[in-house]
């Protein structure tokens, strides 16, 4: 669908450990992606700004969690949002998805003001995952994804009650899409497994599948690789590329800087509620302000640390930064 990307899933970056990924962790097969892309047809092929915020501030009592954050997400773009703990990343996500309504400033989707209610935001085409996985634990993987189809299903209460032909049609369509999405994230064989029984990494991917089921044009991922090993992180990166290729624009919050720098088209650094730096991964990586904000320690050392983090194993890089941030 969107063939204009420079970083297509074809230039597969080797895994951090240098091993071949097991089949279930590999990027979704192309035929699955093609079929899904046809079903979802969200991309228009332009790179126009789709999700924008202007001067968004959020104040909790005396605490200014966000201060005048302005950003713009282009269609088919992957943006990374990084920053130390407590920088306001998740607060910003919550403002974008209607969970909070900003104290001042405005969020717009395709030029229209974002609705205030999370359900309507999803209806408008912005889906999200959560920092701590929030699946419906006692529902099967399939049912979780079907719940995601809720907004796109044409099935009123009466239809739910009577189970007529239209009900069966909408149910069949929803199941069909859910199956494709589960195959897309590599969970096809787990469709009847309860969400709570899935391994951790699979739960994260199921959450992504559930979000994709709402046919979003923008997907917000809150720490999608938290707690994952190197292999799974790599698989997640491939998955996000594939999602972008479906025509969905993506914003990612992540602590793992290596992951962000190799994934995103643009990176935003949020520090103490303010947008500190914005630019390409290379620009951000080299910016001394970022280093300082993250670590607050002598620059030479940290720079070395960051570069080390960026070139060696992702896990150590990410955690190294986090540990340093207290200093």
């Amino acid at each position: 669908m969107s063939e204009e990307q420079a970083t297509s899933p074809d230039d597969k970056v080797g895994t951090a450990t240098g091993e071949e990924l097991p089949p279930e962790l590999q990027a979704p097969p192309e035929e699955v992606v093609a079929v899904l892309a046809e079903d979802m047809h969200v991309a228009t092929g332009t790179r126009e700004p789709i999700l924008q915020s202007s001067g968004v501030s959020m104040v909790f009592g005396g605490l200014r969690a966000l201060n005048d954050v302005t950003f713009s997400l282009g269609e088919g773009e992957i943006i990374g949002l990084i920053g130390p703990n407590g920088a306001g990343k998740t607060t910003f996500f919550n403002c974008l998805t209607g969970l909070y309504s900003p104290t001042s400033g405005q969020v717009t989707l395709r030029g229209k003001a974002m609705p205030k209610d999370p359900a309507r935001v999803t209806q408008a085409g912005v889906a999200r995952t959560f920092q701590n996985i929030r699946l419906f634990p006692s529902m099967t993987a399939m049912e979780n994804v079907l719940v995601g189809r809720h907004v796109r299903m044409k099935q009123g209460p009466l239809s739910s009650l009577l189970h007529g032909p239209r009900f069966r049609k909408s149910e069949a369509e929803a199941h069909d899409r859910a199956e494709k999405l589960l195959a897309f994230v590599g969970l096809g064989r787990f469709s009847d497994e309860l969400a709570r029984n899935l391994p951790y990494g699979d739960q994260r991917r199921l959450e992504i599948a559930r979000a994709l089921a709402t046919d979003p044009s923008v997907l917000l991922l809150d720490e999608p690789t938290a707690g994952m090993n190197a292999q799974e992180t790599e698989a997640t990166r491939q998955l996000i590329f594939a999602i972008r290729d479906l025509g969905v624009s993506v914003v990612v919050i992540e602590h793992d800087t290596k992951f962000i720098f190799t994934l995103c088209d643009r990176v935003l650094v949020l520090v103490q509620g303010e947008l500190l730096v914005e630019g390409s991964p290379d620009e951000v990586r080299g910016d001394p302000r970022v280093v300082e904000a993250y670590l607050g320690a002598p620059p030479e050392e940290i720079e070395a640390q960051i570069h080390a983090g960026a070139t060696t194993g992702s896990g150590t890089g990410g955690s190294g930064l986090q540990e340093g941030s207290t200093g």
Partner: protein
Amino acid sequence: MTAVTEAPPASTPETAPPRHTGRLAGLLGALAPRARLLGIVGGVVAILGSQLPWATFVLNQGAYPELATLPFGFTGFRLHLVILGLATIVVAAVRVPAANRIVRNLGIGIVAVAVINGLYITVEGGGLGAITAADGAVAFGSVVALIGGVLAILGSAAGGVEPRPELDWNLPLWVEWLLLVVIFVLMLLVVAAALTSGGQGGVVNPYSGAVFLSFLGAAGGAFAGLNASGLLGYVATLSERHRVFSVIVLLIVALGLPLTSAGTEYWMTVASNIGVYAATAIGLNIVVGLAGLLDLGYVAFLGIGAFVAANLSGATASAVGIHLPFVLVMVISAVVAGIFGAIVGSPTLRVRGDYLAIVTLAFGEIFVRSAQNNIGGLTGGANAIPNIPAVAVGDFRFNESITIGSVQLPSGVMYYVLIVLLVAGVMLVFGNLKNSRLGRAWIAIREDEDAASAMGIRTGPIKILAFLLGATLAGLAGAFFAHKTGVVAYDSFRFLESVTLLSAVILGGMGTIPGAVLGASILFVLPEKLREFSDYRLLIFGLALVLIMRFRPQGIVADKHRRAELAEEPEDAAKEAPGPLPTRVEP
């Protein structure tokens, strides 16, 4: 009573190689090679016990059933023991799959029969002499039977309780259908036997409560044994495979109850009342079981339906004084109850959990107090609304008996037919809703409201819809209730009734249809049957609830979701194993 304390160690280890811990370990370890023998001996001892005298003398209230002071007999609880004992022997000797599990459950059944009858005779007879030796007579029946049951349980624990096998045979279609018909008919007979066991009670049969409990114990053990063998699971699979067929057969079979031993006016009334509460419990199941909203004032909707129907029934005491056809009355009652449901549900937009429970509790109280004070002259206050005319079609009134050919059906049979159809309709509504976009939205809200909202579910209207639909079903049941009983009084809709309904839903199994029906049946039959125990009635009732919740927290008929939620830890851990996954604790 000692048997009850023996049971837990036997029931806890669910895995195949027995992992015995503590003091019991040595004993069970030593017994392990003789597990099979123990089972057989247990069965033999139980049968032996059944043939000994059970009471040393005739009790004050009259002879204990089944000629308990004499040896030998193949009726009543004695017959139950013989059947359970024979089953134990056969299973232990033949080593069918999951034999230990089956033997354990049969053993529990034997223990239950022995304890219930023994305990009752002891209490009534005024001491242990009544079941051992007194006045030169010996009667060790209950003690011996108890030992037999305990031996069987010990044997099964020593042998290690296996996981329940999953059976599936590929039989020709007609065989499967025939099997389902036979099983459903058998179920009907068991239900009729359970309902009528012990008779109506009162002066005629002072021991009806004990007889009923003993029957429950025996039937429970037998069912648990069947369940352990995987046969019940197979029947469930089978009925799932032929869903429409099963539903139709089940409906026809249910309508056959008047033709069984329960075919008298009294039992028809009891069955109709159970039906009313079953329909109401299914409605509550939408609110509590699916949407996860705790409603402590739910019986008010049954009351609203009943009072609306009473007022439109043409009863002389009604304030409205019009007489509408029954079908129309039902619709109006349901709609009015539904409207009140939506009103009560509206605070759910703002309050959650405990606070919602308090709001609904308050609503229930408002309703009862208003009805008690005859608000607007609509409820009759303390006088109630009596003399509600029976439902009539043409000249035929539903409380009359019918004669078809040579078969005389008891009076009230038409009400029974009506309530069976009503419950079937309510089940259909519940089942359809559960497997739909709406049902999934409810379950999602129950699981995680914020996540549901992030998935585009507009939680407010959907929650109100749960209240509305639940109340509508209760209103339907209420309209039936008013006509069946002929009197509607505020007294029938007190807080305790709400709690009992809630218990029925939880006890039977949240979110399942058979669970709600079973729960309602148990909770509204038990108090009736336990009247003999007068002072101890509610105590026994409460104790039964506590025990069931302790040993089967997911309810008698578990929803697959609930079952997983409450599954024992080791099972969960085992499933989570695949792949080396370092899990980090979320900040």
